[in-house]
């Protein structure tokens, strides 16, 4: 059984056409399922947990990056996780802006997402972890003054710029071989001097006296913070044009 979790903002009229298109396509493909609207729910964790217990085979996030993060946070962070890992898949239907996670998985729009759900191409994906918060895409922090400490050695950024800690690559412009199931995070540091630093790391501490880490462009986390990666943490239904092998 598919369970579709609609984010709050899809209630706005400007998204109604996209939602209708998706629902018609899902009906055509015989993929209808239960619809849960986050707008009316206070306990997301409890609701999703309950659906998994009732036998949901696929939890589909309908919305944007934040929707996906909410659902992953709800699944990973409680005792239903082992059931989810064994039985349940995560699907994504992107609607509106801010959908870099879906793009990374090769899902361009709502109609294509329905076809991808039908094809059920499954990849186990690592999740990045900062303290007790998981992230799928990436975490960023201002470059100047940032120190990445691995115990044996440390790196200090001496110029203004951006430090990106990438689990799942969301753009093709950086020609790095990023892989969300290699157990490593890709570190890309670009400074205003136009030099680039590239590293692959699995566990380190990030410190910056004045700046905070920003998870998937939304959640701020103070430093020092331990950053690591958990291998093969979620099974996701992905498109053929995903940005990784």
């Amino acid at each position, binding site marked *: 059984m598919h369970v579709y979790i609609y984010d709050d903002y899809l209630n706005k009229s400007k998204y109604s056409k996209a939602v209708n298109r998706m629902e018609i396509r899902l009906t055509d493909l015989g993929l209808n399922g239960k619809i849960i609207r986050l707008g009316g729910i206070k306990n997301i964790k409890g609701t999703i947990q309950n659906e998994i217990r009732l036998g949901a085979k696929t939890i589909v996030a309908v919305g944007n990056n934040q929707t996906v993060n909410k659902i992953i946070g709800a699944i990973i962070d409680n005792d239903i996780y082992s059931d989810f890992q064994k039985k349940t898949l995560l699907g994504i239907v992107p609607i509106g802006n801010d959908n870099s996670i879906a793009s990374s998985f090769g899902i361009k729009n709502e109609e294509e997402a329905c076809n991808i759900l039908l094809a059920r191409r499954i990849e186990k994906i690592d999740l990045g972890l900062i303290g007790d918060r998981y992230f799928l895409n990436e975490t960023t922090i201002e470059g100047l003054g940032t120190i990445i400490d*691995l115990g*044996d*050695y440390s790196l*200090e950024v001496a110029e203004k710029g951006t430090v990106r800690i990438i689990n799942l690559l969301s753009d093709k412009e950086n020609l790095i071989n990023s892989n969300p199931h290699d157990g490593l995070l890709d570190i890309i540091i670009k400074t205003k001097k136009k*030099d680039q*630093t*590239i590293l692959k790391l699995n566990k380190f501490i990030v410190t910056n006296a004045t700046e905070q880490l920003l998870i998937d462009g939304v959640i701020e986390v103070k430093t020092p913070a331990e950053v690591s990666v958990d291998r093969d943490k979620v099974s996701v239904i992905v498109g053929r044009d995903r940005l990784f092998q």
Partner: protein
Amino acid sequence: MFNREKKLEKFKDAETVIGASIKVKGNFHGQGNIIIEGSLEGSLKTDASIFIGEKAKVVASVEAKDLVVNGEIKGNVKIKNYLSLGGTAKISGDIHYGELSIEKGAIINGQLLFTGDQTSKKGVQENEGAELTEE
């Protein structure tokens, strides 16, 4: 004959690149190819190749299979196979090498010690006129 362009080609796939704005402190040990354009203090080691850029400053012992130097190294250098010193290279420390190429303008302040196979081709000085000063 040594082909410098060919030797540099493999660095295009370097897994680790330390940019010019980065300061590394400690024991930086990797497994793949490493490019250093910034500064590093401590030790630098890999089973593969290292490229030291023109503006890089490395105050560390360096161990690798191959090494191409265009910047500055203060510390001993142990290279199993091939060492190439560009015209802007400056090394203060003893150098162990298997094969060697030194471009005009490179400065070495230390001992050059051949540690490769004696029957194989010895160090090649590609261009004459490198400044060598043994301590």
